């Protein structure tokens, strides 16, 4: 190799190629990760804006900010955007895309072209859906329950369904890519039980994506055909069963919850070990519980249907499995806590995010037990209790983990350090704002406040006002990182290859890494999270 070529190989992936087509036609997993980051951030703030208007409306019991239909469209936009265009692709397609090949010591993902195609599918599908929803309005909620969605809701339902259907393929392609990469492209010596938990989590997530997403596609095909061709599959007038739609829908959408939370668990395991300077407590247990959650996650979808009119005994069975799926999650929570034991804890911003995750996830998880308990679910189903529960898992859990991970790997991705003090402020604002927003929702849920209500009895106003105030604080917690992270791109300190002295293959290469990730092929000789060795060097 000539010297010039060698220099070019050691240059960072960011240093050359700043024409538009160098980004839009890239196959470099690190650049695709950036494309995804930009897209999901845009979608996130769009969905957040809808949430803000919803919270504004709910400050008073009357419907005075927007009309009833506009309100329904707002929560539909919020749900559709946040679920399909933010939560599902968030960690896997940004951090996962960037880190998975680095963590297994590969040059790229197994199918780099599929990777960029998946971004196009995602973005085009997303923009199409948003355009449809905004121009003509969809008011079915993100769940598209029949027969409301097939016969009663008018306007752009088919367009929205098509968009979601298309975006499903991006999940599938990403899933295939990750699974094959994890199986076939690990560095020599990197056995399964030496993999970082982040890789385990993304691998499990990919399994869910691959096995569940097609069922959503099938369901949406049936729904689209029912609406467009007038065939009846779920139509009660033809002897069809609207509850069947719920079965098929939740067969995807419940495991989809694990698509959202598993990568977050992976991220937090990395963060806590690094800032405790010791290996994770019960590594094998952690890896196995990830797989257990994946498998059991497929057996519990019926717990969304306890009052829907499904069989009593089906409800009983789904409740039982739901209790079982909570076990590995509980193990993980205890193991994270136990990881702190005898560590050397550093309370950086990243660690604050990680510990917030553990606390919020515990609350979200335990209220999940409330919902798994059949009789309790009958009372709190479709109330704000449920809303609070899944926001604790998805926002308190998933978004907190995502932001923590983004901070942790920011130096690796950009080669710049962010201002630590502002990061701490943002992490605390997130934690406080989040609890203020969503804890009152538990209370009003049990008190009997149904969800998706634009107007409500005056008694609940005090709690709604608290919740809306919290949403304001939460917004600050989201906007601050946007500002200082962008700031750091230009003015941040340059980052060394391993600013946190963290374990993991991704820290062995430059920040930011060269085009093919490593200049030398990597081999692995020991277990992950070997912080003793790093600290005693």
């Amino acid at each position, binding site marked *: 190799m000539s010297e010039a070529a060698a220099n070019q190989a050691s240059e960072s992936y960011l240093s050359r190629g700043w024409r538009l087509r160098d980004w839009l036609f890239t196959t470099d997993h690190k650049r695709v990760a950036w494309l995804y980051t930009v897209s999901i951030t845009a979608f996130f703030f769009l969905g957040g804006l809808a949430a803000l208007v919803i919270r504004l409306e709910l400050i008073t019991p*009357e*419907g005075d900010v927007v009309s009833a239909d506009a309100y*329904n469209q707002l929560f539909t936009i919020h749900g559709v955007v946040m679920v399909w265009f933010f939560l599902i692709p968030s960690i896997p397609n940004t951090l996962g895309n960037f880190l998975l090949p680095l963590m297994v010591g590969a040059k790229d993902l197994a199918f780099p072209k599929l990777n960029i195609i998946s971004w196009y599918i995602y973005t085009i599908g997303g923009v199409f859906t948003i355009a449809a929803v905004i121009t003509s309005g969809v008011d079915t909620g993100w769940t598209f*329950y029949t*027969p*409301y969605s097939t*016969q*009663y*809701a008018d306007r752009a339902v088919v367009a929205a369904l098509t968009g979601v259907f298309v975006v499903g393929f991006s999940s599938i392609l990403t899933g295939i890519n990750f699974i094959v990469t994890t199986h076939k492209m690990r560095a020599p010596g990197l056995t399964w039980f030496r993999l970082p938990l982040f890789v385990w989590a993304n691998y499990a997530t990919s399994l869910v994506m691959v096995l569940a997403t097609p069922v959503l596609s099938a369901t949406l095909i049936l729904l689209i055909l029912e609406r467009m061709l007038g065939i009846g599959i779920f139509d*009660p007038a033809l002897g*069809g*069963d*609207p509850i069947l739609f719920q079965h098929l829908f939740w067969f995807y959408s419940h495991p989809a919850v694990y698509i959202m939370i598993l990568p977050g668990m992976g991220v937090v395991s990395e963060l806590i070990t690094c800032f*405790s300077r010791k290996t994770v407590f*019960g590594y*094998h*247990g952690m890896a196995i519980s990830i797989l257990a959650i994946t498998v059991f996650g497929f057996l519990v979808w019926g717990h969304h249907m306890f*009052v829907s*009119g499904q069989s009593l005994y089906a*409800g*009983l069975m789904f409740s039982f499995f739901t*209790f079982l799926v*909570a*076990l590995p999650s*509980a*193990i993980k929570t*205890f193991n994270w*806590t*136990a990881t*702190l034991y005898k560590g050397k*804890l550093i*309370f950086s911003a990243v660690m604050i995010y990680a*510990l917030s995750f*553990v*606390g919020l996830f*515990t*609350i979200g998880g*335990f*209220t999940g*037990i*409330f919902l798994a*308990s*059949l*009789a*309790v679910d*009958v*009372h709190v189903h*479709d*109330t704000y209790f449920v809303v609070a529960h899944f926001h604790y898992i998805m926002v308190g859990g998933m978004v907190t983990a995502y932001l923590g991970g983004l901070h942790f790997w920011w130096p690796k991705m950009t080669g710049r350090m962010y201002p630590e003090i502002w990061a701490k402020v943002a992490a605390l604002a997130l934690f406080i704002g989040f609890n203020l927003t969503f804890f009152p929702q538990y209370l009003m849920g*049990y*008190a*009997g406040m*149904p*969800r*998706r209500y634009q*107007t409500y*009895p005056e*008694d*609940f106003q005090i*709690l709604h006002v608290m919740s809306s105030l919290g949403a304001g604080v939460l917004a600050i917690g989201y906007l601050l990182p946007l500002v200082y992270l962008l700031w750091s791109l230009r003015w941040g300190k340059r980052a060394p290859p391993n600013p946190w002295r963290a374990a993991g293959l991704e820290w062995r290469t430059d920040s930011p890494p060269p085009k093919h990730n490593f200049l030398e092929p990597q081999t692995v000789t020991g277990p992950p999270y070997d912080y003793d060795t790093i600290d005693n060097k």
Partner: protein
Amino acid sequence: MNDEVAPYLPEVEKGLHLIPTQATEHAGQLDHLYFALVGASAIILLMVVGLIAFFGFRYRAGNKAADRSNLPSTRTENRVEIAVLAAMLVAFMGFFAWATTLYLDSYRGPEPAMTIDVIGKQWMWKIQHPDGTREINAIHVPVDEVIRLRVTSQDVIHSFFVPAFRLKRDVVPGTEKTAWFKATEPGEYRLFCAEYCGSFHSRMLGKVVVMDRGDYQAWLTRQGSGQTLASAGKQLFQAHGCSGCHMGKSNARAPSLDGLYGRSVALDSGEVILADEAYIRDSILQPDKHIAAGYEPIMPSFAGQLSEEDILRIVTYIKSLQPGDWVKESVKENEGESR
């Protein structure tokens, strides 16, 4: 809340109740389970948060004094995990059994004293009592009786939700489901639609009125006397010339009124309004207020011409009209003519 739904709102005690009123035995039992769950999660949460705080203080990086030797071995870790697993499993199975028992009880009720039909419809509840009495958005029931509800829907999925009874059933078109309750406290309770059902989901409200047995009998009698009220109303209806326009014959100048009560009426303004008592009354006294779509605003106001009693009688008559009643009547008349 919105004025339109005001007549259906129950009179409940003002102020926020984090635990809703317990109006059935089941409500009390469920709250016990709820408190147990809250207690258990509070303990676990305090443990997790407490440990994080304790470890965070004790093993902070700056604290050189902390003992960090003798890290737990893999074997110990496994033991701890299995212990946690076993403890959780036992606790979870306990909660599972408890919650499931309550759930099954809440479905397989005792022998009911009466069965009331509940039909959900965008965006109202139609109620039908065993004796044929009909109500909208309100259910009057006697206290201490087992009431079985038979619920279904005419259009989309709704959900029948009475927080004070801790009762919720989805109301699914094409299927009939049952639910039961036995109210122990007289009073008025909120009824919500809990499953999202379209534009005015949040206004699909109502009330359950639990009455002492005596009051309930009196209420029933009042409703029952509707028959005679209605026949008086019919005479008034014809005497005041209403039937000339409203009889629902071809090229009528006014909308037909049979089956009107409880229906949604499309208005000229594009709105849709529920034809309840207030609407019928308004239409007699202020015909220009709500103009039915497709008709000219030609009806004169009857304000001042009819006494309150007369209005009530006419309203009761219109309420009593079932869909198709007038068609049958006109067929009879035709038969008479041809004879």
